């Protein structure tokens, strides 16, 4: 028999048990919800971290904008759109399909650098939510979740969405700053190159001009008192120096022309023998021109090149070789085939060029730095620079090789192309 008092307490026990159960259930639910919230927070955090990493490594953050839109879209199950302002003074980029109203909202949001729409304290009555892509001090665009209506985004989702947007904003700003720095650097470089170039050209002009001025004024004021031979010599000097100025001017103009974008060469099928033959004929007119000896490999294929530019290149190299080598030393002009290239080498027996200068000698307008060198390097001004520009315009290369027993070999390599067919019938 059940003791009475126990029966008497049964309702109490049942009630207690029920209460305990309810309490346990409540506790369990709390724990479950806590777990879920923690999981959700962890998921959001991971997503944010991953997106942040992606943004930091991105060369072009704007290229990842669609991933941002996807993430935001996923949060609310709604379509998203974005407006990006990656660079100053460049047009905005629009992604997604915002209507005119949404576009105006994106503009406003980006201009004010402030979230607006449902759940915010700014234009809360709007149907769409707008979030700015915040950089350090300005917004670099905005995104919108379209059609949120009266619903609001959960506070942690809203915070997460804004955090994603800020990652994008910061990355865009970083890019913008880098870009501006690069442009400023380029501008400064262009300007300093231009200044160095002008200084160098002016310097190069001054010496021949002084000779011309001196000789011409002597002819003018002392003409009667000079012998015929003296007058001839003065006139000859004027002609020589004028020729120097002509060459300098041609080189400078050519360098400017080849430096411009999209320069077109007048290329044709040319014979190395002819180009060299014509160059020899020009150099033989110089008093020291007999020093040049040419060797051309027989049976060279025709070359696809601009004959006038090739002539200018050879003239400059030969002129340098004659200028910077002793009066009795031979200057060689060698043309031969090396693999798929034609090699034009101009070789002298001069003092050679110090290793530190072997690359820089091709750079125009570097004369400002020469003070530290006791020996004045070759390539005064523009000659070699224009040669290199000509080589590059032909997809070829120009290099300097020191020679075994002293002197330099300047070597121009021109890629060979398949030669055209020759007339079949004509004998």
């Amino acid at each position, binding site marked *: 028999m059940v003791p009475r008092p126990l029966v008497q307490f049964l309702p109490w026990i049942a009630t207690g048990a029920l209460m305990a159960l309810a309490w346990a259930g409540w506790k369990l639910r709390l724990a479950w919800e806590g777990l879920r919230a923690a999981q959700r927070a962890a998921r959001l955090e991971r997503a944010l971290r991953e997106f942040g990493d992606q943004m930091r490594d991105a060369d072009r953050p704007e290229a990842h904008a669609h991933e941002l839109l996807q993430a935001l879209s996923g949060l609310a199950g709604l379509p998203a759109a974005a407006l990006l302002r990656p660079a100053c003074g460049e047009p905005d980029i629009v992604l997604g399909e915002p209507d005119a109203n949404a576009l105006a909202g994106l503009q406003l949001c980006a201009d004010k650098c402030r979230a607006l729409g449902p759940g915010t304290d700014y234009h809360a009555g709007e149907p769409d939510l707008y979030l700015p892509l915040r950089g350090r001090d300005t917004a670099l665009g905005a995104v919108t979740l379209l059609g949120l209506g009266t619903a609001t985004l959960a506070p942690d989702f809203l915070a997460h969405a804004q955090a994603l947007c800020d990652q994008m904003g910061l990355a865009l700003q970083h890019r913008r700053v880098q870009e501006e720095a690069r442009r400023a650097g380029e501008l400064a470089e262009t300007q300093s190159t231009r200044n160095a170039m002008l200084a160098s050209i002016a310097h190069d002009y001054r010496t021949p001009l002084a000779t011309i001025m001196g000789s011409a004024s002597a002819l003018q004021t002392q003409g009667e008192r000079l012998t015929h031979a003296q007058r001839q010599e003065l006139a000859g000097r004027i002609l020589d120096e004028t020729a120097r100025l002509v060459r300098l001017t041609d080189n400078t103009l050519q360098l400017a022309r080849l430096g411009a974008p999209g320069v077109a060469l007048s290329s044709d099928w040319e014979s190395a023998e002819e180009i060299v*033959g014509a160059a020899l004929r020009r150099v033989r007119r110089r008093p020291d021109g007999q020093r040049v000896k040419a060797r051309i490999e027989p049976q060279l294929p025709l070359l696809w090149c601009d004959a006038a530019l090739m002539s200018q290149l050879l003239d400059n190299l030969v002129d340098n070789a004659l200028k910077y080598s002793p009066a009795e030393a031979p200057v060689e002009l060698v043309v031969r085939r090396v693999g798929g290239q034609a090699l034009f080498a101009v070789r002298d027996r001069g003092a050679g060029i110090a290793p530190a200068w072997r690359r820089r000698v091709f750079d125009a307008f570097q004369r400002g730095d020469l003070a530290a060198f006791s020996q004045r390097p070759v390539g005064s001004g523009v000659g070699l620079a224009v040669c290199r520009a000509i080589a590059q315009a032909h997809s070829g290369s120009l290099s300097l090789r020191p020679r075994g027993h002293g002197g330099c070999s300047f070597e121009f390599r021109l890629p060979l192309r398949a030669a055209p067919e020759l*007339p079949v019938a004509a004998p």
Partner: protein
Amino acid sequence: MKLLLVEDDRELRVTLREALTVEGYEVLAAASLADAMAQLTHAGHLDAVLLDLGLPDGDGEELLQALRRERSTPLIVISARQVEGQKIRLLDAGADDYLVKPFGIGELLARLRVALRHRGTVAQPAVTQYRRAGLEVDLQAHRVRRDGADVRLTPTEFKLLARLVRQAGQVVTHRRLLADVWGADATEQTHYLRLYMGQLRAKLEADPGEPCVLLTEPGVGYRIAEPG
């Protein structure tokens, strides 16, 4: 000898005019194309025209055509580097020769002398014989000799040589050579010229690697050296 000098730069015009006058030429001067066209109609007979390219009012092709319509007055083009294309166009269209600025008076006089020698000779070339540096060419007799010995040329080689000889001392552009030797549809085949000029040089030059008769004008054409 009456010349028309078309040059817009005053200093150069005055300098050239004086130099040419000293040489005994009568020089009419014009500073623009319009001016030159007017002189052309009123000046009567002219022996040669010196035309500077890069005039403010046109590229001179008009003047060349007007000149060629009635008479075969020689025209020498004076060009600067930056009008290379225009120079070649005019040479292709029948201008006789060119000078690149800046040039010496000696060079100008030489070009003028050659041009005047060829005057009025389109139908019947004045020059059918050529002699220089041991080379003798007789176009009528179809004979080529070097150092007194006959040289055998292929028909194409001879045609090419003859074309150059008919304008001895003057440049002949690639296009004109190709059109006259190979025909109007071969004007782009510059590589034919390279081959045949190489062959001609091998047969006719003392040192084919350094020609002194069959000269190359890079990017323009060929010139057989002035006889003598």
